[in-house]
């Protein structure tokens, strides 16, 4: 697995936004890679930089964003230096995206068939063939009677079916990377389980890589091979899914896991764990460790200087001065 180059390789990426309040440093020194055939999960709470990171990968950043440094390589090519023509190829064909809200991802006034044929516009194949391909893909994602229903409009489908259609559209061009941004957040739990099952099957069939963004630790544990934990614009920990869940090295990861109500044993009545304090202001960053002000294990040296990434073996790294011990 380590022999072939990764699909996506991000190194030391820093992105900031120019705002009236000053420079908001939304991403700082973010490094991660998505190997071929693997599902990598990004987990973090609101404001951790997940959305900025995804936008950077597809070069969809807002006009006031500045890439301060670092590289993004997609199958070896420098995304930050790509000309517009290559970017068009990257978005949708080589890297496809499934969004959080299936209700707004589809165009309500255009039939599903038209949308699914249009998305193949780079392919010179005849329209009938594109339609047949779309029908086959809808069948694959579990839409009943796809041959007839493909001519319907988005409002004729339920939320779960719309997310299936969005996934079908993302996979039509056979991308090497699928980016899924909270794809089940808008769905009920029984539908969420079905979509997760579908993503897993599709990954097996299509042999692509998936970058799966979620705040749901249960989904990350269930679906992902590797996990990247983000906090306030930094990667604080990264490693194999088992290492992250069974032997987390960063205090933030440990607290985040402790807060998940699905992990709290039946001790009804006891106080639920929380993470005290609030996110730091990204326009006025603290000197030392980004998590120090909320960290129950913080020491004087934590606020003095920002910690480096420390490797703890088997590709597991954590940005904490204590990560190497115990």
């Amino acid at each position: 697995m380590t022999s072939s180059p990764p699909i996506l390789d991000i190194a030391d990426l820093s992105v900031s936004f120019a705002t009236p309040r000053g420079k908001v440093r939304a991403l700082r020194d973010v490094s991660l890679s998505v190997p071929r055939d693997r599902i990598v999960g990004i987990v973090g709470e609101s404001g951790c930089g997940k959305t900025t990171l995804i936008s950077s990968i597809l070069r969809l950043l807002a006009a006031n964003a500045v890439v301060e440094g670092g590289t993004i390589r997609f199958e070896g090519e420098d995304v930050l230096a790509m000309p517009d023509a290559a970017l068009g190829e990257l978005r949708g064909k080589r890297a496809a995206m499934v969004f959080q809200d299936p209700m707004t991802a589809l165009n309500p006034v255009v039939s599903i068939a038209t949308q699914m044929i249009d998305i193949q516009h780079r392919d010179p194949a005849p329209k009938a063939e594109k339609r047949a391909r779309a029908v086959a893909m809808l069948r694959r994602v579990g839409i009943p009677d796809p041959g007839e229903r493909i001519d319907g409009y988005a409002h004729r489908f339920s939320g779960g079916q719309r997310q299936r259609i969005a996934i079908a559209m993302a996979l039509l061009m056979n991308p090497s990377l699928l980016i899924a941004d909270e794809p089940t957040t808008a769905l009920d739990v029984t539908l969420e389980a079905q979509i997760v099952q579908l993503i897993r099957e599709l990954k097996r069939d299509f042999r692509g890589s998936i970058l799966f963004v979620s705040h749901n630790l249960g989904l990350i544990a269930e679906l992902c091979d590797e996990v990247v934990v983000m906090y306030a614009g930094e990667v604080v920990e990264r490693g194999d899914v088992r290492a992250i869940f069974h032997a987390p090295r960063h205090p933030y990861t440990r607290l985040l896991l402790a807060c998940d109500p699905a992990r709290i044993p039946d001790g009804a009545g006891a106080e639920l764990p929380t993470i005290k304090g609030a996110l730091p202001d990204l326009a006025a960053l603290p000197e030392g460790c980004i998590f120090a002000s909320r960290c129950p294990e913080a020491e004087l040296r934590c606020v003095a200087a920002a910690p480096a990434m420390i490797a703890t073996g088997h590709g597991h790294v954590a940005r904490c001065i204590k990560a190497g011990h115990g």
Partner: protein
Amino acid sequence: MAEMLLRLEDIRVRFRTHGALRARLTGIDRPYLDAVDGVSLSLAAGETLGIVGESGSGKTTLIRSILGLVELAAGRIWFDGAEIVDRSDAALRVLRRQVGMMFQDPVASLSPRKTVRSLILEPFRIHGLALGDPAALMDMVGLPRALLDNYPHQLSGGQARRVGVARALALRPKLVIADEPTAGLDVSVQGEILNLLARLQAELGLSYVIVTHNLPVIRHVSSRLAIMYLGRIVEEGPTRAVFTAPAHPYTRALVAAVPRPDPDDARSEPLLSGEVPSLRDRPSGCPFNPRCPDAQDRCRIDVPAPRALAETRTVACHFPLSTRMTPRLTT
């Protein structure tokens, strides 16, 4: 029954789908759908009742009907020892003084043009009462007093939720109804809101009805649990018993569908196929039968009535599961 703070009997809420004339002309004999279809529930003082169900199960409509925010088609409601017979606006206003409501999506439910001070004093104004002390209310819900002159868009999600708690509790109600109190919050903040609700319950002797689709959360906060499906309660009982030994196949599927935060604990139970059907074409017989892995002929014909399983548990299923099996939610 005498000790119950809130008692609902055979509540029905019906929404019209076609006008009366059009229904007659086009020969539709049921020009309505039953969003809540015969729900009976009760809540003892000091208790927390969780109502769980997926989108379209009727849980929000049910709680809105208690406060008269949607009209009842049938059913009886008792609150604090007296039946609410008079459902005129004036009578409902008195009821709403004693029952606080926390709405879904706290940011959207707060007027963007009002300050926090004005928002938390609004209940007093609506009911024509002497204004309470805004600083004391802020202290009660753990908000810094400096936020009194802020507007909703200047609040974080957790702070907006606390303003919602202050508004619900401003008039010192006996009962608080909370619709998805932690939806959209990060896990680290979710715990804070739930701890706040628990502390206020202990301090003020409150009772709660909490509506949610989040099973891991409701497991930790409710003492009793009612599971809704297509406008009916399919199972009801003590929270722990319902979680550890579900009697209804739908409850079992719900509990099994919750992802487990452990990479080595794979799902073993079969997934539920299909989706919740539309209320417009409610299946005949048991509403769950088209998705139920255990459905038999009788389930497609007879509607199962709720029946007692134990002293404090009911299930609406012809073939309830053995309550000795123990699926897991936590590890």
